[in-house]
């Protein structure tokens, strides 16, 4: 290059400085900012933000995300480059827990995975966190049947350990994610869901069905289309709220849910979960979203195109 503009860093002769010692050189392209902005991604608005750039080509871009209440790394004011995968999730559930971004020739998109923002509480794969009352036969610990087994309708119970929700906290959304470890014959299973109206529910080594139930309840039908390896995820927001609103509830206490038969027809129309799963996604858990707000974002769209 026989002409142009070069500006060297302090202490370097502009005539001999190499590229990395120049603060500017017309030999090298730099990125030109088209637009910048910021916002918030919410669960209630579909977990995806669309930002129009209308450039007619795919621009280079950067997106940073602030995870707000999430404390895996950094602090509440930290921004991370998106894509960002939350926590130590395995590859199998990365999509569920990431903030991603992409661009096409019209828009920039920022999307939060379906599981992002949820706190999860588990059974710890402990036998005494599952139970079934087979009506007319008796109580069985360590497994949670739903439906009808060998002529007996089944009421199931499950306990989640160390639920870290403060007393009286507002619950935005909660689901009981029931993993179907095994199944009998296919068929719909109508059920009624309750929480145990307890400050700190005991384990299920003996029958919990004498515990008081929450006023909050929900009727659901477990679809016959749900097979082994899939999950059924009824909403239990009202039950969780009622339990944590108890005056005697304390952060870290245990929580029990009942899934009661509500008219199952067809013998051996059942599903179950117990202490057999050993993979992160292969057992039941309680997931709770405390806020509609999931993440903040800042974006930079460059005028420069991805010129592939």
């Amino acid at each position, binding site marked *: 290059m026989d002409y142009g503009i070069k*500006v060297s*860093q*302090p202490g370097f002769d502009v005539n001999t400085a190499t*590229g*990395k010692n*120049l*603060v*500017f*050189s017309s*030999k*090298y*392209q*730099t*990125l030109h900012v088209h637009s910048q902005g910021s916002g918030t991604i919410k669960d209630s608005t579909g977990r995806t933000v669309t930002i129009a750039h209308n450039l007619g080509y*795919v621009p*280079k*871009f*950067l*997106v940073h995300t602030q995870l707000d209440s999430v404390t895996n790394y950094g602090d509440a004011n930290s921004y991370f*480059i*998106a*894509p960002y995968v939350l926590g130590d999730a395995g*590859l199998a559930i*990365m*999509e569920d827990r*990431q903030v*991603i*971004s*992409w*661009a*096409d*020739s019209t828009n920039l998109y920022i999307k939060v995975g379906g599981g992002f923002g949820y706190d999860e509480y588990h059974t710890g794969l402990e036998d005494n966190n599952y139970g079934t009352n087979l009506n007319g036969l008796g109580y069985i610990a360590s497994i949670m049947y739903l439906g009808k087994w060998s002529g007996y309708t089944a009421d199931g119970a499950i306990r989640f350990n160390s639920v870290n929700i403060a007393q009286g906290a507002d619950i935005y959304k909660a689901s009981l994610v029931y993993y179907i470890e095994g199944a009998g014959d296919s068929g719909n299973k109508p059920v009624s869901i309750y929480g145990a109206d307890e400050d700190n529910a005991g384990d299920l080594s003996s029958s919990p069905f004498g515990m008081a139930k929450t006023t909050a309840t929900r009727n659901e039908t477990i679809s016959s289309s749900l097979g082994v390896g899939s999950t059924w995820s009824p909403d239990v927001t009202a039950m969780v709220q009622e339990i944590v609103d108890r005056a005697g509830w304390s952060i870290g206490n245990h929580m029990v849910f009942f899934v009661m038969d509500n008219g199952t027809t067809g013998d051996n129309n059942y599903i179950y979960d117990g202490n057999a799963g050993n993979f992160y996604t292969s057992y039941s858990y309680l997931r709770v979203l405390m806020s509609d707000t999931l993440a903040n974002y800042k974006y930079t769209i460059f005028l420069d195109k*991805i*010129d*592939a």
Partner: protein
Amino acid sequence: MSDFGIKISKDGYDVKTASITEQTFNSEKNCLKIVAEGSSSYTGTGGSITIAHNLDYIPAWLVWYEVADSGKWFPQYVTEDVSGKHVTVNPYTNSTNFVADISMDSSTTVLVYYVLFVDPIS
């Protein structure tokens, strides 16, 4: 540097008093300068793209990728259902090459677009 150099302010700001964020150029501050950019495609079920830069140091870089001619360009390292494919791209640089390791759950074509800066990462 305080007595000499070049400053260019944004529209509406006095260059003599504008803060650094109100300037579009200041010779006291380095600019990221693109030394190379381009694209390379990979078709298969998993492999790598290697681009030699031969800078003898590790340059700053950016990367985006497109799956199966979808028109959607993602930054690095993400697994996402794009046109029915789940792809993960792990890009990195050393003092010689820019490398993108690519894995996917079924055979497809991934187009990787890279930007290498002449400026080192530190």
